[in-house]
C-alpha cells in the first residue's frame, strides 16, 4: 500500500540521508581535516589554505559531480528500463558508454588535444554521440523503433565498439594506454573541477524535470507497445525521442565521470520497491537515491585505501552487486504482492 504519507516519509528520509552524506563527503576524505576548519573553509572570505583548497576546490566539485552523475544515471536507468520494458536495462546497455570509451581511447592513442584532462571527455562525448546516431539509425531501419529492436541495435553497436576499442588499444604502440583507458572506463569523480562540473550538473538539473514531466507517457510504456498505442501514445516516436534524450544525458555523464556502473541498474530497482513503478513517484526517489549512492560510494573510494583512490565504479559494482541480489531475494520472498 503506497499512501501519500509513506511517499513523503521516503522522500524526507532520502533528503536527510543526502544532506548527511554531503556533509560527510565534505568533511571526510583521504586528508583528515578538523570539523572546525571545514566550516571555516566554507565561509566566504576565508583565508587561502591547503585545507580550503581541498574542501572548496577538490571535495565540493566532487560532491556536486557525484550528485549529478548519481542522480542522472539513476533517472536515466529508470527511464531506459521503461523504454525497453526490461528492468535489467541500464544506461550503458544501448552502446552509449561503449561509444564514449571508443572516443576517449581514440583521443588517447592518437594524442589529440593539449592535455588528456580536456581531450578525453571531449572525445568521449563525440564517441557517445556517434554511437547514439548509429544505434538510432539501426533501430529505425525498416520500421518502427520497438523496444526489442532498440535493445538489439544497442547491444550490437556496443559489442562492435567495444571490440574496436580493444583493437585500438592492442595495436597502440603505447602500453600505458591500457592503464589510462581502463581507469577512464572504470569511472571516477576525481577529475571534478569547478570549470567543468557545471555542465553535467546543468544537464541533470534541466533533464530531470523534463523527464518528470513525461511521467505519464513513460508510465504507458510499462504496459507494453500495444496497450500504450491503445491509450493514445505514438509509441515509436515517443520512444525514439526519449532514447535520444536519455542518450544525450548519458553521454554528458559518461564524458564527465567515465562509466560508473550499477547505479543506473540498482537504484531504480530499489526505488521501485519503495514507491512503485509509476514515474511521477519513481523518478524523484531514483534521483535522490542515485545521488546518495554515488556520493557515499565515492567517499568510500577516496578514504578506504587513503592516500590512494579506488575507482568508484569498482566500488559501486562491489557493493551494488550483493545489494542487488539481496533486493531480488527480498522481492521474491515477499512474492509478487507489494
Amino acid at each position: 500500500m503506497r499512501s501519500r504519507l509513506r511517499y513523503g516519509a521516503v522522500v524526507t528520509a532520502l533528503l536527510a540521508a543526502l544532506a548527511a552524506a554531503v556533509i560527510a563527503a565534505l568533511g571526510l576524505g583521504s586528508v583528515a581535516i578538523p570539523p572546525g576548519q571545514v566550516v571555516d573553509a566554507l565561509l566566504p572570505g576565508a583565508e587561502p589554505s591547503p585545507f580550503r583548497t581541498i574542501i572548496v576546490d577538490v571535495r565540493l566539485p566532487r560532491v556536486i559531480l557525484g550528485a549529478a552523475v548519481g542522480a542522472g544515471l539513476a533517472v536515466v536507468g529508470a527511464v531506459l528500463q521503461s523504454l525497453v520494458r526490461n528492468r535489467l536495462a541500464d544506461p550503458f546497455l544501448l552502446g552509449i558508454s561503449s561509444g564514449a570509451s571508443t572516443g576517449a581511447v581514440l583521443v588517447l592513442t592518437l594524442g589529440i588535444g593539449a592535455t588528456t584532462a580536456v581531450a578525453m571527455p571531449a572525445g568521449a562525448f563525440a564517441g557517445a554521440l556517434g554511437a547514439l546516431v548509429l544505434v538510432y539509425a539501426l533501430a529505425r531501419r525498416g520500421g518502427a523503433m520497438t523496444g526489442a529492436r532498440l535493445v538489439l541495435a544497442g547491444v550490437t553497436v556496443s559489442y562492435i565498439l567495444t571490440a574496436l576499442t580493444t583493437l585500438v588499444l592492442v595495436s597502440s604502440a603505447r602500453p600505458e594506454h591500457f592503464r589510462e583507458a581502463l581507469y577512464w572506463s572504470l569511472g571516477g569523480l576525481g577529475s571534478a573541477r569547478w570549470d567543468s562540473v557545471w555542465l553535467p550538473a546543468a544537464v541533470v538539473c534541466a533533464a530531470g524535470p523534463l523527464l518528470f514531466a513525461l511521467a505519464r507517457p513513460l508510465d504507458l510504456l510499462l504496459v507494453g507497445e500495444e496497450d500504450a498505442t491503445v491509450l493514445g501514445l505514438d509509441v515509436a516516436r515517443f520512444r525514439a525521442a526519449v532514447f535520444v534524450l536519455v542518450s544525450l544525458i548519458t553521454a554528458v555523464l559518461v564524458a564527465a565521470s567515465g562509466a560508473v556502473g550499477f547505479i543506473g541498474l540498482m537504484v531504480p530497482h530499489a526505488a521501485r520497491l519503495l514507491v512503485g513503478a509509476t514515474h511521477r513517484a519513481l523518478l524523484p526517489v531514483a534521483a535522490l537515491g542515485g545521488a546518495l549512492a554515488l556520493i557515499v560510494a565515492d567517499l568510500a573510494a577516496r578514504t578506504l585505501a587513503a592516500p590512494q583512490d579506488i575507482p568508484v565504479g569498482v566500488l559501486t559494482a562491489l557493493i551494488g552487486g550483493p545489494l542487488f541480489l539481496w533486493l531480488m531475494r527480498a522481492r521474491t520472498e515477499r512474492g509478487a504482492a507489494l
Partner: protein
Amino acid sequence: MPRRRSTHRALIAAALLLPLAGCGTDADPSGKPAAALPGASFPYTVDNCGVKTTYQRPPERAVTMNQHVTEIMLALGLEKSLVGTAYLDDRVLPRYQKAYDTVPVVAKEYPSREKLLAADPDFVYGGYASAFDAKDGRTRAELKKSGIDTRLNRENCTKGRTTLDDVYREIEETGRTFGVGDRAEKWIAKARTRVAETERELKGRAPRSVFVYDSGDKTAFTVGGRGIGNELITRAGGRNVFADVDKAFGDATWEQVVARDPEVVVILDYGATSVEQKKRRLLNDPVLRDVPAIKNKRFAVLPLSEMVVGVRAPDAVAKLAPQLAQ
C-alpha cells in the same frame, strides 16, 4: 612500459576475467650472494626469484627480453653470448649501440614461444614477469623442460623496498652466471663511486619533498615507496611524498597531493604524452595552484627507461640530483 605493461595487462585481465587477477611474486629466500670469487667459478648455483639453477658452465646462446636486461648484458661485454634480443622500450644506450647491432632482434616486443625456441637459446633473461608469460607458453618451468635456463630481473621478486643494492646484486649474479664476475665487480665499484659522489654533494642539505607525476586526471598516478623510483629520488636528494604507499606505483587522490605540499614535481617521461603536456595539465589544475612546486613551477624530469633495476640507475641518480637541488 613492460613492467607496467604487465600491470596493465593484469588490470585488463582483472577487468575482464576477475579470477585471473591474482599474480604471485616469487620469493628470494637466500639472503646473501654465494661465495664471492671474481671471474669464472663453476659450478655456480643461484636462487633467482624462487628458481634455483646450477650452472656448470656459462650459457652460450642467451636471449634477452626487455631493454634494461639487454643493457646489463651489453654492459658486461657479453654480446658474444647473445643470440637474440627482444623488446626495447625506447632505444638502447648510445654507448652500447654498436654491440647491440651485432645481435639479431628476435622480436620487436615479446617473441612467441615458437619464435623464442627457433633462436635455439640455452638461456633466457627476462626483465619483467611478463617476459615469462604463461599464456604464451613461456613460463620459466616450461622453458626449463625445453632445456633452457632462465633468469628474471630481481626487481620482480624483491621483498620490501627495491634499492640500489638490488641493482648491484642483479649485475653481480648475471656476471657470475656468465663467468665474468670480475667485470661485474668492476662495474659495481664504479657505480658505487658515482652514487657516493652525489651523496657527498648533497651532504648537509635537507631533502626536497617530491611528488612524482606519471599520469592521470581522475587520480594522480604516482610512484610509491616500494619501487626503484623511490630509491632513485631518495639518493638524488629527494623525499617522495607518497613513500608511504606500499607499492611501486599507486593512484593518489588529488587532495592528498595538495595536503602533502611537495616542493618539486618529478615528471616521468615516456609514451605519447609529452613532458610539456603533463606540465601543462598540472599547471592548469586550479586545485594545485597553491602547491609550492606548481606555484614556483619547479619541475624535474625522470625518463621511465632509467627507472629500472639496470645499468642506468646510477646515471639517473646523478642526473636527477641537480634538478631537485636547483
